[in-house]
C-alpha cells in the first residue's frame, strides 16, 4: 500500500509514535496526580480496541506502572482510569491477563468492589470480569465459606456489572462435580435465574454460568428444571429465538449441556429439531458466536443418530461445506467445530458420507491436515476416519490415492499425540480397502511408522497404531507379512503382548491373530526364536486375562492349531504345560465364560486340535477328556450362542 517515496516518512512515523508512547509512559510515573490521571486516560484510550498498542505498551512495562498507580491512590478518578486500563489489557488478550496477574493487583481490584463510588465499582467489576474470562484466572475456591459468601454478595448486587461478575466467576471457574454440588446446595441456581429477566449482559452471563453448573450433573439439571415447575427451562428455550445472536448461541449451548446430561427432558422432537436448526443458522455468524456454534453443534449431535439425521435433513452438510469453501481465513476453533460436526454426521449415516464425499471436499480436508493448529488437524483426521467407513467410497479408491495418503502418512510424525491417534484411526479404516494394493502406504514407510508409534509413550497411540497394523495384516500376502515381521521380530511382539495396558495387549494379540492367519507358513512366526511368541501368548492366557484379550489370544491358538501336527502339539503344550502344580485350566474357565465370543473361540481351538484328519487327534482327544474339557463341551450342546452350538455339533 505505501509507495517507496513515502517509506522514509513511515520510518519516522514509527519512531515518533514510539517516542509518543515512551513519553506518555514516563508521565504515568509522575508524582503530580493531574499529570498521572491524564497519562492514564491517554494510555487507556490508546489501547482500547487496539491489540497492537496493547502489545507495545505491555512491552514498555505499562502494566506494572498502572498497577502501582491503582494501588497507591485513593483518588476515585485515578482508580477508575487505571482499573479501566487494566481491564482493557486483560480483554481478550492472554499476555495482558498474565501481566495484570503478575503485577499482583488482583486483590486491589477486588477491594474496588466495596467502594462508595459507583463508577469505581463498575470499573473494578468490569476488569475482574475480563480476567475471569481467561483460562489464567486465579482458581476460585468455591468450597471455602467466605468465598461463597462473597460470591453471593456479588450475585445479590443491584449493580449489573457486579452481578455479572458473580455469574462470570461461576461460568469460568467452576470445574468439578463437587463444586457444582456445593453451589447448587447454596442456592446458586435460584440466584442465577433471576438474571435471566435482567439486562442483556446479565442474561448472557447467566446462560454461561448455568451451562457450567449443569454440565454432566444430572442432579443439578433436575434441580434447575424443577425450579417453578420448569419455567426457567422454557425461558431458556424461548431465548433460542432471541434477537441477539450471542443470546441465541448461549441459550443453545445451555440446552445442549442439559440434553447431553439428561436427555429425558427433551422428548419433544420439535425442540430438538429447532435446536439443531438454530445452531446451523448461527454457524453463519462471522464472529465469535459462529465459532462457538460449530463446537456446540458437534457436541449436540455426537453419538446421537436421530439428531444426526435431523441435521442431515436440515441440509447441514451442504451448509457446512459452503462455509468451509468460502475461502476466507476461518478461526481455528470454528474450523475444528465444523470438521468435528462433519465427522459426527458421517459417523453412522451412509447417506451423509456419500453426500459429503460427493461435494468435492477432499481437497479442503487434505489442506486441513496441514493446518498449523493441532486441534484442526485432529478434527480433519477424525473426519477422514468416519468418511472412510463408507465401503462404497473406500473401494472406489477415493482415499487410497497419493494425494490423500501422503499427507495422512506424514501426520504419523506429528508432534501432537492427539493428531497421531486420530490419523491412526483414519488409516486403520483406509487400509481396509482390499481392492487396492496399498503399496503407496507401504512405500511411504507407513509400516515402519506404525511400528514406531506402537512403541509410543501414549497408550492411545500404541493402541491405535496396533489397530491400524492389525487391519493392514488382515488377509495380507506373505510378502507384506514378512516385511512387517522383519521389523518387529519375536522380541517386539513379546513387548506388545505384554504391554501394561490391557487394551494394547488386546490389539497386539489381534494383530498376531491376523498375522498367523492364512497359509501354514504364517504360523511359523510364532515359533521363531524357540517359540518365544507362542510361549508368551500361553503365559498371558494363563494369567486370567480380560475377556477381550482372551478372545484374541484363543483365536491365535485356533489359527496355530489349524496347522501341522507339530503346531497342534505345541498348542497342547501351551494349554496344559507340565508340570502343573495346581490345576489352572483356563480352557474350562473360558468355556464357561459369559462372553459368547470367548466360548466360540475356545471351541474353535478344540475343533482344530481334535479334527479327525490329523494323526495325533485321538491322543489329544483323550487328554482333553481327562482335563474335563470334553464333558464341558457336551454340556454346551444347547449353548445360547448359535455359533458355539454349530461348532460343537461338528
Amino acid at each position, binding site marked *: *500500500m*505505501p509507495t517507496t517515496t*513515502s517509506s522514509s*516518512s*513511515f520510518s519516522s*512515523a*514509527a519512531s*515518533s*509514535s514510539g517516542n509518543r508512547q515512551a513519553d506518555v509512559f514516563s508521565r504515568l510515573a509522575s508524582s503530580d496526580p493531574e499529570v498521572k490521571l491524564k497519562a492514564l*486516560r491517554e494510555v*487507556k*484510550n490508546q489501547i*482500547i*480496541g*487496539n*491489540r*497492537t498498542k496493547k502489545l507495545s505498551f505491555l512491552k514498555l512495562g505499562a502494566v506494572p506502572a498502572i498497577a502501582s498507580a491503582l494501588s497507591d491512590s485513593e483518588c476515585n478518578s485515578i482508580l477508575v482510569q487505571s482499573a*479501566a486500563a487494566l*481491564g*482493557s489489557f486483560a*480483554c*481478550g488478550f492472554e499476555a495482558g491477563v498474565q501481566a495484570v496477574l503478575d503485577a499482583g493487583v488482583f486483590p486491589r481490584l477486588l477491594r474496588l468492589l466495596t467502594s462508595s463510588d459507583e463508577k469505581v465499582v463498575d*470499573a473494578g467489576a*468490569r476488569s475482574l470480569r475480563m480476567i475471569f474470562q481467561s483460562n489464567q484466572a486465579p482458581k476460585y475456591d468455591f468450597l471455602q465459606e467466605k468465598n461463597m459468601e462473597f460470591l453471593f454478595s456479588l450475585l445479590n448486587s443491584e449493580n449489573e456489572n457486579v452481578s455479572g461478575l458473580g455469574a462470570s466467576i461461576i461460568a469460568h471457574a467452576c470445574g468439578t462435580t463437587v463444586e457444582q454440588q456445593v453451589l447448587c446446595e447454596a442456592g446458586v441456581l435460584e440466584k442465577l435465574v433471576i438474571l435471566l429477566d435482567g*439486562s*442483556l*449482559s446479565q442474561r448472557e452471563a447467566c446462560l454461561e454460568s448455568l451451562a457450567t453448573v449443569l454440565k454432566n450433573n444430572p442432579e443439578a439439571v433436575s434441580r434447575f428444571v424443577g425450579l417453578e415447575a420448569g419455567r426457567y427451562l422454557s425461558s431458556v428455550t424461548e431465548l433460542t429465538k432471541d434477537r*441477539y445472536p450471542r443470546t441465541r448461541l448461549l441459550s443453545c449451548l445451555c440446552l445442549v449441556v442439559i440434553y447431553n446430561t439428561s436427555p429425558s427432558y427433551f422428548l419433544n422432537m420439535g425442540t430438538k429439531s429447532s435446536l439443531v436448526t438454530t445452531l446451523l443458522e448461527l454457524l453463519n455468524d462471522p464472529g465469535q458466536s459462529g465459532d462457538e456454534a460449530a463446537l456446540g453443534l458437534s457436541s449436540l449431535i455426537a453419538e446421537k443418530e436421530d439428531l444426526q439425521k435431523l441435521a442431515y435433513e436440515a441440509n447441514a452438510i451442504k451448509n457446512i461445506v459452503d462455509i468451509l469453501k468460502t475461502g*476466507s*481465513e476461518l478461526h481455528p476453533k470454528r474450523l475444528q467445530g465444523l470438521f468435528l460436526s462433519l465427522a459426527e454426521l458421517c459417523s453412522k449415516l451412509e447417506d451423509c458420507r456419500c453426500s459429503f464425499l460427493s461435494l468435492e471436499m477432499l481437497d479442503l480436508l487434505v489442506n486441513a491436515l496441514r493446518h498449523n493448529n493441532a486441534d484442526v488437524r485432529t478434527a480433519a483426521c477424525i473426519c477422514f476416519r468416519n468418511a472412510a467407513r463408507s465401503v462404497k467410497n473406500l473401494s472406489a479408491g477415493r482415499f487410497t490415492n497419493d494425494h490423500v495418503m501422503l499427507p495422512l502418512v506424514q501426520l504419523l510424525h506429528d508432534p501432537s499425540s492427539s493428531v497421531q491417534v486420530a490419523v491412526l484411526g483414519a488409516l486403520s479404516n483406509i487400509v481396509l480397502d482390499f481392492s487396492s494394493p496399498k503399496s503407496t502406504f507401504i512405500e511411504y514407510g507407513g509400516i515402519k511408522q506404525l511400528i514406531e508409534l506402537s512403541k509410543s509413550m501414549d497408550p492411545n497411540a500404541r493402541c491405535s497404531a496396533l489397530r491400524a497394523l492389525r487391519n493392514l495384516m488382515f488377509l495380507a500376502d506373505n510378502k507384506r507379512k514378512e516385511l512387517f515381521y522383519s521389523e518387529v521380530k519375536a522380541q517386539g511382539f513379546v513387548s506388545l503382548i505384554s504391554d501394561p495396558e490391557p487394551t494394547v495387549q488386546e490389539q497386539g494379540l489381534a494383530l498376531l491373530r491376523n498375522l498367523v492367519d492364512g497359509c501354514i507358513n504364517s504360523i511359523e512366526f510364532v515359533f521363531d526364536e524357540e517359540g518365544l511368541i507362542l510361549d508368551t501368548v500361553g503365559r498371558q492366557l494363563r494369567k486370567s486375562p480380560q475377556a477381550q484379550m482372551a478372545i484374541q489370544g484363543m483365536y491365535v491358538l485356533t489359527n496355530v492349531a489349524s496347522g501341522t501336527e507339530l503346531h497342534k502339539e505345541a498348542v497342547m503344550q501351551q494349554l496344559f504345560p507340565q508340570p502343573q502344580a495346581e490345576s489352572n485350566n483356563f480352557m474350562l474357565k473360558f468355556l464357561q465364560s459369559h462372553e459368547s465370543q470367548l466360548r466360540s473361540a475356545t471351541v474353535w481351538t478344540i475343533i482344530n486340535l481334535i479334527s479327525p484328519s490329523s494323526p495325533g487327534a485321538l491322543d489329544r482327544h483323550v487328554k482333553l477328556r481327562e482335563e474335563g474339557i470334553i464333558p464341558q463341551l457336551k454340556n454346551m450342546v444347547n449353548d445360547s450362542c448359535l455359533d458355539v452350538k454349530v461348532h460343537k455339533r461338528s
Partner: protein
Amino acid sequence: MSLFRIFINQDDDDDDMATSKKVITREEWEKKLNAVKLRKQDMNTLVMNFLVTEGYVDAAAKFQRESGTKPEIDLATITDRMAVKKAVQNGHVEDAIEKVNDLNPEILDTNPELFFHLQQQRLIELIRQGKTEEALEFAQEELAPRGEENQAFLQELEKTVALLVFEDASNSPVKDLLDISHRLKTASEVNAAILTSQSHEKDPKLPSLLKMLIWAQNQLDEKAVYPHINDLSTGQLQDPPE
C-alpha cells in the same frame, strides 16, 4: 332452486365485476376506525420511546414533566450518548472515542468492526482537512494493523486511502466516503452500540409501527378498496379512487 341461487350470485358479481374487491366508503371506514380503542398511555410511551432512542434529552425531560410518562432509561445516560453521537456528526472522532470509553470501555474493546469504522472516520477527517502526512502516518500506525487482522477491513482501508491518491477526491470513485452521510452512518453505528450495551433496543418503535401500516395497506389492497393514508406525516385519509 339452485338455478335461482346462481342468478342471485351472478347479480352480485355484476356489481363487483369491475373491481372484484370489497368497497368500503370513507364513512364506513372512519366508523370502523373510531371503534378501535387506544390507550393514551400507550401513545405517550411510544412518544417517549422515540425521544429517548433518538436522543432528544430536553424534549424527553419536558415530556416527562408534562405527561408524567416515565422514560425507560435514565435520561442522564442519554446525554452522554448524545454527546458521542454529536461529536461524530461534527467530525470530532477522537473526542467521541474518548467519550465512549468513559461511558463504557468494553464497547470498543469488544466491537472490532465499530472500532475500525471510527478509526476510518478519523482518517477521513484528516484527509478532508488536507493533513496528508498526518493521515498517512495515522493509516500506517493505527489502521494497517486492523487491516492485517481482518480481510474485510483491509478492503475498506484501501478504499479510504485511495482518497489520497486522487487530486480531486470529491470527484473520485470513492467520494462517498467524504460525504457527510458517512459521518451520520458512523454516528448511527456508535449510537446503536451504546444502546445495545445499555440493553436498550436500538430502534425506536414508531418507525416499525408505520412500516406495519404501509405493509398492512398493501396487503389489504388485494382484497378491498378503502381510504388510504398516503402521507405518513399528516396521516390524512384519502378517498379511494372511483
